[in-house]
């Protein structure tokens, strides 16, 4: 048994050492590199006293607050309809609302450009780049958070409370304001917090849809580091960004803790019913408006990608193989597609192995040490992708064996971003396994490795599948970190789209459209695969 015991100890050490080592190397070290840079030669004080920085910081905060308010206002009617009414295709509608949320930022940006650029249906607004497209794109992205979080909560509120208020003489609006809204407040705040965090750290749409005069912190970090090559200032900005995000995350966690008690008081009852009379108009109107708002830009994207010079044509897609596009990219656009798929597979494998090992360690031994491991693994969640990418740039400039030039750094960065999702998905599944099942398998003659394969793995397979889909979607769409570390001759699809967008000329626009459609299809396929797993096993989304 000593052999078995030694093997067991080795396994326990491995499942802590691998994730900790991986994140120390590929997360903590890059972050430390940023810290080191930003503390050099008064970089921090220079930045903090710079009026440009103040303008950027103020705009970042301002656009995040406005985006959040707009998203809640736009999302609430849809949340209400989904929560309270039964209508044909309700589940499909809920899935549809989620689509923008998982779409890559470059795809959404291209879609809005297709809408607003000359030739687009909304070109008359003359909004090509600037604050308005940025805010609208933020709403487009994050409506799903409000509909799902608030809608899910709303569906569990007993409608009789509101009816009771109506019986006591309150008008419909009054009943909503004095009864329903206070009960919904915690979920609205929860959803709003997430939206705020996303929009505060927004990079892709801010870079591609806003104008240079309205840069967010993320965009400014990128501009300083890559365009101006002022690493000192970029590092100082990144440090400010990290501190701000951590402060926000901490404050939100505290606020949620305080509200958790109130949430538990609400009883659950499925309360959806078919709309009657005038309600049909309201429900139809909300559904129609939401579908047009979310589906419109994507439809325009597809339409324009298939429409060259006023005719239906596959020309944009065919041009992807032409030599002209290869010079823009250094490689063929199809190579970018291949890179994206390969990187997604590698990133998913790394994230599943590292996150899976960490999950086993966290789930197997509750205690202080595993709680701190858990917290450590969640840190990338509170760090923006641009920070990760910039950290890579600073930390991995000189590595042994020329590893700094390895294209593998891209999927590794993607894995860093995706690991927290794996842990969040797998740990609860592992914890849900009755430990006696493992004992039972052992008593029936299964070795520890066989127990893992026969009990833990099949029971958590679903969670792993969902995590894998998530990792793949994250990797396919990842833009902020990739922009810093992708080698020019190894672009991913989002990088290729960005390059096409940054070149003048209709040919480049067409190619960005075609590439965006391809990326959208790839992502939708992956996400549909996840949703299938979920729907089949859980019945409800």
């Amino acid at each position, binding site marked *: *048994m000593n052999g078995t015991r030694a093997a067991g100890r080795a396994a326990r050490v491995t499942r802590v050492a691998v994730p900790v080592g991986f994140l120390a190397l590929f997360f903590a070290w890059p972050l430390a590199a940023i810290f080191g840079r930003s503390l050099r030669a008064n970089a921090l004080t220079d930045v903090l006293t710079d009026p440009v920085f103040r303008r950027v910081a103020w705009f970042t905060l301002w656009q995040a607050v406005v985006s959040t308010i707009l998203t809640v206002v736009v999302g609430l009617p849809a949340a209400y309809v989904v929560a309270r009414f039964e209508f044909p295709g309700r589940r499909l509608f809920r899935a549809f609302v989620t689509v923008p949320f998982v779409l890559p930022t470059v795809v959404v940006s291209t879609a809005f450009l297709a809408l607003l650029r000359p030739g687009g249906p909304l070109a008359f607004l003359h909004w090509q780049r600037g604050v308005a497209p940025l805010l609208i794109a933020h709403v487009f992205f994050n409506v799903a958070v409000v509909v799902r979080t608030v809608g899910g909560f709303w569906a569990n509120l007993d409608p009789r409370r509101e009816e009771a208020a109506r019986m006591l003489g309150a008008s419909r609006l009054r009943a909503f304001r004095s009864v329903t809204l206070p009960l919904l407040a915690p979920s609205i705040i929860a959803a709003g917090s997430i939206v705020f965090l996303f929009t505060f750290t927004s990079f892709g749409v801010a870079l591609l849809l806003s104008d240079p005069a309205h840069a967010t912190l993320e965009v400014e970090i990128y501009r300083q580091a890559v365009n101006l090559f002022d690493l000192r200032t970029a590092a100082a900005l990144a440090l400010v960004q990290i501190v701000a995000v951590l402060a926000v995350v901490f404050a939100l966690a505290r606020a949620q803790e305080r509200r958790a008690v109130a949430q538990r008081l609400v009883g659950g009852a499925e309360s959806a019913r078919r709309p009657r009379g005038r309600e049909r108009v309201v429900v139809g109107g909300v559904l129609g408006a939401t579908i047009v708002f979310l589906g419109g830009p994507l439809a325009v994207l597809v339409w324009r990608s298939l429409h060259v010079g006023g005719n239906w044509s596959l020309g944009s897609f065919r041009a992807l193989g032409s030599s002209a596009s290869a010079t823009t990219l250094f490689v063929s656009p199809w190579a970018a597609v291949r890179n994206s798929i390969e990187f997604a597979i590698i990133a998913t494998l790394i994230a599943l192995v590292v996150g899976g090992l960490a999950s086993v360690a966290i789930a197997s031994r509750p205690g202080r040490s595993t709680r701190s491991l858990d917290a450590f693994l969640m840190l990338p969640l509170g760090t923006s992708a641009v920070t990760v990418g910039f950290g890579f740039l600073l930390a991995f400039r000189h590595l042994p064996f020329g590893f700094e030039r390895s294209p593998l750094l891209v999927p590794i960065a993607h894995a860093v971003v995706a690991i927290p999702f794996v842990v969040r998905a797998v740990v609860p599944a592992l914890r849900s396994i009755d430990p006696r*099942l493992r004992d039972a398998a052992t*008593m029936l*003659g*299964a070795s520890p490795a066989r127990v893992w394969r026969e009990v833990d793995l099949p029971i958590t397979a679903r969670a792993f599948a969902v995590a894998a889909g998530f990792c793949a979607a994250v990797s396919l769409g990842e833009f902020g970190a990739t922009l810093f570390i992708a080698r020019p001759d190894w672009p991913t699809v989002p990088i290729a789209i960005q390059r096409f967008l940054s070149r003048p000329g209709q040919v480049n626009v067409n190619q960005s459209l075609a590439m965006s459609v391809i990326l959208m299809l790839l992502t939708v396929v992956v996400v549909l695969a996840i949703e299938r797993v979920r729907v089949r096993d859980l019945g409800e989304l």
Partner: protein
Amino acid sequence: MLQVERAVVRYGEHRALDGVDLALEAGETIAVLGPSGSGKTTLLRVVAGLQQLDAGRVCWAGGDLARVAAHERHFGLMFQEYALFPHRDVAGNVEFGLRMTTSDRAARARRVDEVLDLVGLGGFQSRRVASLSGGEQQRVALARALAVSPRLLMFDEPLGALDRVWRQRLLTEIRSILDRAALPALYVTHDHDEAFAVANRVAIMRAGRVVQLGEPANVWRAPVDAWTATFLGFGPVVAAEVRDEIVDTPWGALQSSNRLGPGPVDAIIRPDGARIDHSGPIEATIVRTTFTGTRVELAAVSGTGPALTVVVVPRDAPATGDRVRLSIDPDALLVYPRQAD
């Protein structure tokens, strides 16, 4: 066959097992009986190899098992609340252990059919375990443990979650399967009826130690101490005094065949020890009658003592308020040295 010698398991300061000795003979069933927290499940896990010993040893046929991992011991264990694999159907559960040893699908299927027939679940092969009743799930668990023909079968409160009718039926079936297979077994329970019904010998555990080991009838007739007697559901413990051949109890001076030197003692009357006897020495008033079907339990008050329990057949039951005379079987008046509080 199985020997447990001076087994010790510590959880920090607490000793879950505090020097347990136990020997199981071939074909024998020992019931390990004790309240929760007495260490009986820990003992089972130690024998299974799921729990490491801090001291002592566990041997099988003379060989120390310290170097044999749990999955190599070929012991079967049936868990409280079954622990069936939710991701496999009935046949998949029963087949599980067989898959560890043989790749012959046809042989495995035959064995699955065989044990399912044995536990009365023929035809249940492709049922989902979640669709089964508690009793059926427990039979699947039994079939799963039996399928691999273990050298020793262990039960951890196997009937705990079942209702009365199922308990009775399964208890009889487990007993007959163990007898037929001449399989040695350890049966952990907190229910003395269950322990007495299933076991050749009963080991009573308290605070990590085996305090008494014997055949059910002997354990019942003479519990080793007042605590054990109380645990087995015997009447209240009263302070008494031994004088000459007589025990002075709050119910009067009584004969006891359980000899102890003169002095203060704790006395307990076994539930089957008091009976209505017109020439009995105790005069008592019936204060309560409880009808349980095949018998009636009377609570009879006499002197300064707590109520005595008298079990009679319903036909002979007096009514509440009746005055009766009782005698106590000298063998059923148990006396123990006075416990210092």
